[in-house]
């Protein structure tokens, strides 16, 4: 036992003496959490809009004021006329232009309806879509205010409730993904590098000739990373809870247990890579391209899987992070228990076992 403890102590020395890597290991999650918490948002505010009001009557002016008073819109610095709206789009100074034709108040009074033009820069389709919805909502609201005694125009009145995340904060969505990414980084990338380093330097041979069993060597190498990554997870959760108010609605014990499962899965992948490669460079390349990239792109971390083409949706099934994300989003955001995520847990467990078996077998063959 003390043999084993000595081994683990040595591993910690390695980790703590490589300051740069340590900084990246612990600095990266914090920086990313801050970026995702504060900067990376899907919410849309302060859209630069130009309103060309060709009527300039009392009613149209009130409409303009109402639009600009909303937090979503902000008047562009430069005032445009119809002919040079395009220039504004090209320069990127405006995202939307609203054109109110002549005789707005008069037509509204006389015909009971009037048309306004809404031009959006649709290079970013979602922003365009959202801008249009916001504008429509304000305009409809304005029409209702204009004639408070009228019967309601809307026949079907939807009463919408945003479940789980009423403020539509994107950080709530990103924190689970961040956890998956960090775990992959620390567990898979770092272990594959540290094991191949022993191979490169030649110390692995000495260890193999020693009375230590191969299983002890591997466990000794990965245990410190398991501890570190667990610490990483807990600190991300605490930071997210107290800085960004990201809730853990379900059971914390279950959440940590699932994290542990994913950690073991990532460690198994790291070991697998290290048994297949002999240089740190290759191990790093494979980990980055084969593990980290899919974890970012194909797990549903940032981009919803349901929007992807079928081929990629199939590919996403073999990305462990996809299942892990479904589990921890369920636990953290929806507050569900194991009865809702047992299927995903089972798949993840199966994957982990498979990776473990393959890597153990590979490691023995390499002897």
């Amino acid at each position, binding site marked *: 036992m003390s043999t084993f403890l000595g081994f683990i102590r040595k591993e910690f020395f390695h980790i703590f003496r490589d300051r740069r890597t340590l900084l*990246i290991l612990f600095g*990266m999650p914090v*920086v*990313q959490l801050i*970026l995702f918490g504060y*900067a*990376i948002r899907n919410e*849309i505010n*302060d859209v*630069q809009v130009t309103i060309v009001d060709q009527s300039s009557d009392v009613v149209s002016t009130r*409409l303009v004021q109402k639009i600009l008073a909303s937090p979503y819109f902000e008047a562009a610095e430069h005032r445009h006329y119809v002919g040079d709206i*395009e220039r504004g789009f090209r*320069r990127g100074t405006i*995202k939307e232009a609203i054109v109110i034709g002549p005789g707005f108040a008069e037509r509204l009074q006389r015909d*009971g309806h*009037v*048309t*306004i*033009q*809404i031009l*959006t820069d*649709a*290079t970013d*389709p*979602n922003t*365009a*879509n959202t801008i*249009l919805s916001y*504008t429509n909502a304000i305009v*409809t609201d*304005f*029409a209702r205010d204009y*004639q408070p005694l*009228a*019967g*309601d*125009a*809307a*026949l*079907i*009145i*939807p009463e*919408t*409730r*945003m479940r*789980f*995340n009423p403020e*539509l904060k*994107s950080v709530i969505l990103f924190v689970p993904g961040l956890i998956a990414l960090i775990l992959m980084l620390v567990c898979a990338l770092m272990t594959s*590098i540290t094991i191949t380093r022993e191979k490169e330097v030649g110390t692995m041979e000495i260890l193999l000739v020693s009375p230590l069993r191969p299983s002890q060597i591997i466990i000794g190498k990965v245990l410190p990373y398991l501890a570190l990554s667990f610490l990483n997870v807990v600190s991300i959760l605490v930071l997210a809870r107290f800085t960004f108010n990201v809730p853990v609605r379900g059971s914390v014990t279950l959440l940590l247990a699932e994290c542990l499962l994913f950690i073991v899965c990532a460690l198994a992948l790291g070991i697998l890579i290290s048994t297949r490669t002999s240089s*740190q*460079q290759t191990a*790093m390349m494979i980990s980055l391209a084969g593990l980290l990239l899919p974890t970012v*792109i*194909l797990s549903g971390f940032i*981009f*919803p899987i349901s*929007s*992807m083409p079928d081929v990629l949706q199939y590919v996403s099934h073999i990305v462990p992070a996809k299942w892990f994300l479904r589990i921890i989003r369920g636990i953290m*955001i929806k507050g569900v228990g194991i009865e809702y995520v047992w299927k995903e847990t089972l798949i993840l467990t199966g994957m982990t076992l498979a990776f473990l078996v393959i890597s153990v077998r590979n490691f023995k063959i390499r002897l």
Partner: protein
Amino acid sequence: MLPIIFVMPVVQLLVLSFAATFDVKTITVTVVDNSNSPESQRMITELSASGYFEIVSYSASMQEADESMLRGDAQMILGIPSRFGRDLQRIGQGDVQIIINAEDGATAGIIQAYSTRIFASLGQKLRMEEGIIVSNPPVVIISEPRHWYNPGFRYTTYMVPGILVVLVTMIGMFLSSMNVVREKEIGTIEQLNVTPIKKHQFIVGKLLPFWLLALVELAIGLVIARIVFDLPMVGSLFLVFGVAGVYLIVMLGIGLWISTMTNTQQQAMFIAWFFVVIFILLSGLFTPVESMPLWAQQVNRLNPIAYFIDVMRRVMLTGAGLVDVLPQVVSLVVFAVVVISLAVRRHRKVVS
């Protein structure tokens, strides 16, 4: 090495462009129809006919529907109260309950927008067909939307120019920084130092191939974008390559600078990775820069990736000319001069 340089970017371009989409395609819906009236049937039909929504199940109660949402089977619950049909007939309006899974706030917003629009137009239709006459008819302001540059709301059109930037960046920064460090690791840099080659010749000789390589990569990427994603090139191709040339000098300079700070390829890779990730996250590739807080927007003033993505999108999609992107181009030129001179000075010091 060659397959990595040419095949990887192509694969990345394809996978990223198809995967990196916030496009909301099929929204899964479970319906609780307590009304079971012709009106409620009509509404359900209308919803699934829109193409955005797919009715995956009917739930007997709101509780059952909620279970379905917890399991992740349904993204939206449409609850129709029993009095819905009667209300429509009698008072000319009826309300329905919509519950949207808002884990992903952006998607939830889009779902809400789509559903509201569908209900509004159904309302209009019902009014006309049924001839429901409301006393004292309300005024209507009809908004007539025009979506410029990307009227089909294709997400790839938006993402591909940005992804091209990311790919070109990888080449410029990773390969150049790792290549120079590699010379250090192997020791060939000492060898070169004893030859009469001048320092600036060394640097130009080292960076020029990567500069050309990245531009070739960009050309290949543009061709693929054209063929596979039907991406337009409204503006001038010449301008795109011109700006790319300047931008690459900035990134190569950063790569060289990283290589002077590190001794192993691994360190170089880690540091390059660290910077690139932060730059990309802030660049507006995934999320609009305008939604970011002021400090992030200020940081972006020093972010070459943000400038280049912005220029690429506007030139390629809206047809912006040099005049329109002048501020961005000027910033990139300033960066290029500053970064290259800093990197070269530091390189000289380290080497000699």
